[in-house]
Every structure is written in C-alpha cells, then in structure tokens.
C-alpha cells in the first residue's frame, strides 16, 4: 500500500522520470506560485477522477472507456476552472488556457488507464495522490528555479538581493526547455537510474 503512494513522488516521478504532462510543466512554471497552483489543480482532478473511475470501473464498457474517462476528467476540470475563476481570479487569468488543458494532461489519462480502471478505490486513491504530489514537487522546483534566475526571488521573496539583473530568457520558452533539461539530467544523476 505504501509503495503505491511513494512511487509517484520519486522513483516514478511523472515529470522527471516518465516525462508526462510536459505542456503545463513548461508553460506555467514562470514562478513558484503559478507552478504550485497548477500542480494542486492537476492533483485535484487526478484524485477526483481516479476515485470516480475506480468506483465505476465495472460499469464502463471496455470499448468506450477512453471516451468515458475523457468526459469524467473534463467535468472535473470544469469544476476546477469555475472554482479558480470565482476564488483566485488573478491566478486563473495567469494560467489562461493551460488550466482547461489539464483535460489532455497525459498523466491523468495515463494513471486512469494504467491503474484506476483496474484497481480498487483505496489503492487508486493512494496512487493518484502520490503521482499528484510528485507532479507538484516537479512544478514547484522548476517554477522556483526559473523565478530565482529570472528576478532573484523565490515565491515573491527577495533572495539574491537588489544587485541581481533580471534574466528575461528564463521566463521565455527557451529558458523553460533548457532549465527542465538541466533538472532532468540532475535528477538522473541523483537517483542513479538510466
């Protein structure tokens, strides 16, 4: 049981190891807070749809399972989008179309297909929670690194001091790709895999 939970955080980390869910990972991690909110929103959808699909797994016919999964996921994403718009409108507008794009995040469909559609509710809950935390971890690290090198702050707090000249490349697409590349390499080095 513990294994179901822990594997998503490090050994099978969805971003660094499985290389899934790249679109939001690269697009919204211009700052730590954006990465965190995206990660939490995705985790909510992952856990909620995992529970629903795991509970309905015997009722969904095999031929139309992908379409059914997509509808369940899209419904939960709509819930998240409306909640964000109502309670944290600034973050909602910063994330823009990437918030609804959680629907096509391959981590979510991947976990439903590989785990939730076959396993009981309890194990599925642990699995999706672990994967969600792993995703949040990756987004927060990437967002933090990019924010730090962009303007010398982490989560809005000044870290490097006023001498630091901001580096615009870090919040542009090229900076996103390059920082993630370095982080993935670092992760491989640390975990000693591959």
């Amino acid at each position: 049981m513990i294994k179901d939970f822990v594997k998503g955080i490090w050994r099978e980390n969805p971003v660094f190891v499985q290389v899934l869910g790249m679109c939001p990972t690269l697009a919204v991690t211009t700052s730590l807070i954006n990465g965190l909110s995206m990660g939490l929103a995705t985790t909510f959808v992952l856990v909620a749809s995992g529970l629903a699909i795991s509970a309905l797994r015997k009722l969904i016919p095999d031929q139309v399972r992908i379409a059914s999964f997509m509808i369940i996921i899209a419904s939960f994403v709509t819930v998240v989008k409306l909640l964000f718009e109502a309670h944290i409108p600034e973050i909602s507008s910063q994330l823009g179309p990437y918030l609804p794009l959680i629907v096509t995040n391959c981590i979510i469909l991947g976990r439903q297909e590989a785990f939730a559609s076959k396993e009981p509710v309890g194990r599925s809950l642990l699995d999706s929670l672990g994967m969600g935390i792993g995703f949040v971890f990756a987004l927060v690290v990437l967002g933090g690194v990019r924010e730090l090198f962009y303007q010398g702050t982490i989560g809005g707090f000044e870290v490097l001091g006023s001498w630091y000249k901001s580096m615009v490349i870090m919040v542009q697409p090229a900076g996103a790709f390059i920082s993630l590349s370095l982080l993935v390499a670092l992760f491989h080095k640390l975990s000693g895999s591959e």
Partner: protein
Amino acid sequence: MGLFFIFVAIVLTQNFVLHYFLGICPFLGVSDEMEGAFGMGIATTFVMTLTAIITWNINTFILKAFNVEFLEYVSFILVIASLVQLVEMFLKKYLPELYETLGIYLPLITTNCAVLGLALFMVLREYNFVESAVFGFGAGVGFTLALVVMAGIRGEINEEDIPEPFRGTGITLLVAGLLALAFMGFSGLVPT
C-alpha cells in the same frame, strides 16, 4: 490582423510547440525518424483543421446560442475524440493507402493537447469562421515543421557521445530549448 499574419504567426513566431508548449508529448516521443515525424504531422494537421471548423460551429451555434458555455471543455474533447475516430474509419474505408501510412498515429492525436489547445485559443481570441480555419491549418503546419526539424537534429545527435545523465530526455529538451531560441529570431515578422 489579416489572414496571412494569422498563418505566419502560428507557423513561425508563435509556433504551438516551441512557443505555447502544446503537443510536447509527441514532439519528444515520436520525433526519432523523419518519415514518422512527417506522417504524424500530416495526420495532426488534418485533424486540427477539421477540429477548428467544427468546434467553431459548435461554439457559435450551440454553446453561445443556448448560453451553456460551461460545457465548453466536455463538448470540445468529445468532438475531438469522435473526430479522430471518424477520420480513422473514413480513411480505412476510402483511402486505404493513406490509412496505411497515417493509421498508427491517429489514436495518439486525441490526447495531443495541441488539438484541444487550438480550440481553446480560437475561442479566446474570438476568431471568425475563416480565421479559425486558417488558424487550425497553420497550427498543424507549425507542428509538422517543429516535428520534422527535431527529427532531423535527433538523427544526427543519436550518433554523438552524450554525457550519461543527458541521454534521452535531457538532450532532447536542450535541443528544443535551442530551437525555441532560434525561432525567437522570427519574432519581428508579424506586426503586433
């Protein structure tokens, strides 16, 4: 902004893959060889153009007309999934040769976030019908371009001696970063 600029912007300056990070999964995964990359690109362009045309109609005549815009995501993803299925069946029956070449890539397109992203951007920017069609087609062309360029570079890189931790994902992302940097050079092409 004229149709021409919409097209140039989405192919070069605001390329879906290198500017908006949409469709990264197939970009990193499939682009190992030139032919595969090209096939995937053509199949995706086809689906994207159709998606743009159909979702525009659904959005204008159903969702907006009946004030049920909150159903946007559910209906869009349903349209895309069924469209992919439909295209697959159509090709299998009437154009078996084309199906042979594109067949294996088609199911992957449903989870390609570039297709859903296209529909969402289209609504966000309030394009009219013709603009949407051009936008959809251009997005597909841009996606194909990125995929083919990447495939060419990866073909060369695979023969080099790459430091251990960078093998696989690391080096691919690094190349993508340099490509994004190169594509920034186009940024003056479209007046804002």
